[in-house]
């Protein structure tokens, strides 16, 4: 058969696929409405920032020093100190969930702090929420250090308070979680369009017997696959555009990298996601099973293990290894770099290579597993 006939077939199949997308509200919903909802949810609803944590400060001896230490806690935007004198009452408040932590300052606390930095201050945190617990510990230490410096300065002394830490946050100076959540949401949406929607669409063709009808036409499996990928690739880029525009204009997330780099990273990831969706569809021939598999192997890992919500570096080592085989991880890294830092090729290239590798792997496996037969 001539190349012209093949081209005609691909165009016809692409037209078919496009018409199906346009007329099927669920495809449109996943590509355009889903990013909207996810962005609104993560943009406004979920904030990982910690502010105004109620902390009980138990002062066994109220002196000028302890009072100024208390002030130092109160000056922190992250802590709302509650003054208490009785450790047992503070414990009751912690148990009741009224405070997230307790700082117990023994009578000689301030003096021993001055004496060499080893203050006898007890910090008790509510470990139910590990994230918050870590914050409380860190902030309590930070507040104590701040007090010590000010105290030294007040006395005209210098130097022996150890290392003076002056913090400066780069890339996301306001520490807004929206700034790194929005790029993460984009990765989730791309995963849904690429892997889940594709797997569902192919399963539907099996269910309705249209796949069977296509197989007896001269169209090859490669033509069927290519035309489908082309259409869902464009749909994915559409979803991407919606997400990026919302991120920039609604949530004021900066985009410091170039459009070209963003397009390249997205394309590589989409190819992998489409490959995964097609691979799933070679195994699952009904929509329910295809949907389940797609959620378990693409959506859930993209959510939990991509570094979108949970920082990969703070995961246990074994889980960190696992994240290596989650393509979304490389995409999230690229996106966060592109949005918050810029075209840092040193970061982008290895991650892009990772995505390209997965795309190649999934598409090759799909090619090997696809047969022009029903069994």
């Amino acid at each position, binding site marked *: 058969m001539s190349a012209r*006939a093949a081209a005609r077939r691909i165009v016809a199949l692409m037209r078919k696929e496009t018409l199906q997308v346009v*007329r099927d509200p669920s495809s449109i919903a996943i590509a355009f409405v889903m990013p909207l909802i996810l962005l609104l949810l993560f943009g406004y609803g979920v904030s990982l920032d910690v502010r105004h944590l109620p902390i009980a400060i138990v002062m066994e001896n109220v002196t000028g020093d302890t009072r100024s230490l208390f002030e130092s806690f109160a000056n922190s935007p992250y802590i709302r100190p509650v003054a208490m004198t009785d450790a047992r009452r503070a414990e009751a408040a912690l148990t009741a969930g009224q405070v997230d932590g307790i700082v117990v300052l023994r009578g000689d606390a301030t003096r021993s702090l001055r004496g060499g930095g080893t203050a006898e201050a007890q910090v008790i945190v509510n470990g139910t929420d590990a994230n918050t617990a870590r914050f409380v510990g860190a902030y309590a230490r930070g507040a104590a250090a701040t007090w010590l410096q000010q105290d030294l300065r007040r006395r005209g002394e210098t130097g022996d308070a150890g290392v003076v830490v002056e913090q400066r946050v780069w890339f996301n100076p306001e520490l807004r979680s929206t700034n790194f959540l929005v790029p993460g949401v984009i990765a989730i949406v791309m995963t849904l369009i690429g892997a889940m929607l594709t797997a569902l669409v192919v399963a539907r063709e099996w269910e309705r017997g249209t796949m069977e009808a296509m197989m007896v*036409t*001269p169209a090859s499996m490669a033509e069927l696959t290519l035309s489908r990928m082309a259409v869902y690739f464009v749909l994915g880029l559409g979803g991407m555009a919606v997400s990026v525009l919302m991120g920039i204009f609604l949530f004021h997330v900066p985009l410091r990298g170039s459009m070209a780099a963003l397009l390249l990273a997205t394309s590589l990831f989409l190819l992998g996601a489409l490959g995964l969706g097609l691979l799933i569809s070679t195994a699952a021939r009904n929509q329910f099973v295809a949907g389940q598999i797609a959620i378990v192997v693409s959506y859930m890992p993209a959510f939990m293990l991509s570094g979108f919500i949970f920082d990969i570096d703070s995961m246990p080592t074994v889980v960190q290894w696992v994240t290596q085989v989650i393509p979304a991880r490389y995409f999230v890294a690229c996106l966060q770099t592109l949005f918050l830092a810029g075209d840092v090729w040193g970061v982008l290239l290895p991650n892009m290579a990772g995505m390209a590798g997965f795309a190649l792997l999934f598409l090759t496996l799909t090619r090997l597993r696809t047969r022009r*037969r029903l069994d």
Partner: protein
Amino acid sequence: MTPAEAAAAPTIVVSELTKRFRTGDRSVVALDRLAFAIAGGGITTVVGPDAAGKTTLLRLIAGLLQRDGGSIHVLGRDIAVDATSVQAEIGYMPQRFGLYEDLTVGENLALHADLRQVVGAERRQRFGELLAFTDLAPFTGRLAGQLSGGMKQKLGLACSLLARPRLLLLDEPSVGVDPLSRRQLWRIVERLTDDGMTVLWTTAYLDEAERSRHVLLLHEGRLLDQGPPADFVGRLAGRVLLAQAPPETRRRVQALAMQDAGIIDAAIRGDGVRLLLREGAAPPSAGAIQARSIEPVVSALEDEFVARLAPARRTLPAAPATAAAHPADSEIIAVRDLTRRFGSFVAVDHVNFSVRRGEIFGLLGPNGAGKSTIFRMLCGLLAPSSGAARVAGIDLGRSAAAARARIGYMAQKFSLYGNLTVRQNLAFFARAYGLDRRRRDRRVDWVLDEFDLRAEAESACNDLPLGFKQRLSLGSALMHEPAILFLDEPTSGVDPLTRRAFWLRIAALAEGGVTVLVTSHFMEEAEYCDRLAIIDRGRLAAVATPAALKASVATAALPRPSLEDAFIALIGAGNQAAAA
């Protein structure tokens, strides 16, 4: 090979064809050493019950499955070697027509034309021909998903015909399609064969086989027999008899005949009961089975089929309970001006009928005529827009739940739990109907005995053959001893013997005073009914006994019309006018 030789060579040659499927660690033989040759031209039917292997055979011929043994040559070439080039010359319509439901009629056709390189003037000409041929010209802009079953079928056919195939494979094109569309389709395909096309058509309908040029009789993966249908006629000389009986006693005659060990099968026909004798068995006396007279008739394809299936699988249904002395003419279902609207669409339009106690009452009509809607309203699952329905003296508009306690319902797809055993299924339905423990145990035992299920009581339902599932489904519906039984297309897809056995049970129940309401596409099922209501586009076209319906459409040209003829005459005229 010269062109002349190629034309004379058989279109399909199959030898020693074997196909196995693996499910888990079990290997099931779907086709067992099939061998046949199909000459060019004409319609060849592959006949057999569900799971006979019909679809598998067609898919193998289309090159969609890999065989495990033997060979298939299609149009002179080995399909395993040369699938793509063979497929270019065949048309294939899968069971669900293979249409894109989100695409319009025109878009579906255009897709297939592009894929098969039908372009330019050829394409315009082909579209014109096919649209005219299938009467789809007015609907090119309609989404395929919104077409009726018959129209989808014709569109599927048109798509498979675009490139003028030499061989056309049709997989159960008449399943779920009403008799009118079924007849139209047959005519269309017959015309195709006039131009030299070879057609392979799978079906569960024996009447279609009788009209074809060649028949392949398939059962459980084996080719039982093959040949032109005429070869099957008269083969069982002396073994097929007609026991004359008036409509009122036909069921009694049938039940008595089935008690006779020498009789393989007894089927109710228009003018009596058709009996099939075991080889060498003596015919029963007319008196013994309470028939007026018994006379030999010419055997047909169906007799051959039944005779071959029978020895292995006879399950004798219980004799009917002695006819209860139920008050004559006591009206148990009364439907007055029943109407149901969905938006502006009137699904059921002022329907009136009544059903007597112990009667078997059939609702017949084409797809989408409103049968199911009437059914759902009578079961109290759907509220009528206006009008009233009383079931067992209870007004459905007032207390649907109370009426439901008197109703047993057997759904088309047998609502059974596949992972539960037979006993667990029965116990579940008993609890669902609120039976107390003692009554529950008693009823489960009754069903296991009465429906021959005791040997399978602990088997998971999924592993049972279709006929068993059907019996279990009926048993579940009877758990709470309902006064009325609703059957929705109860025997579609089962072989003729299983269907007969099922109807014997239904007849026994009716004799015992249970009222039976049934919807069907199957004209044979309709023959079992005492009275029939023909529903057409939401309205009642006729209510009468099968004999009266047939008599009403008799003409000089057709002095003894079949029930299907009557159905088509009553529905046909109206349908043609309303097609647009």
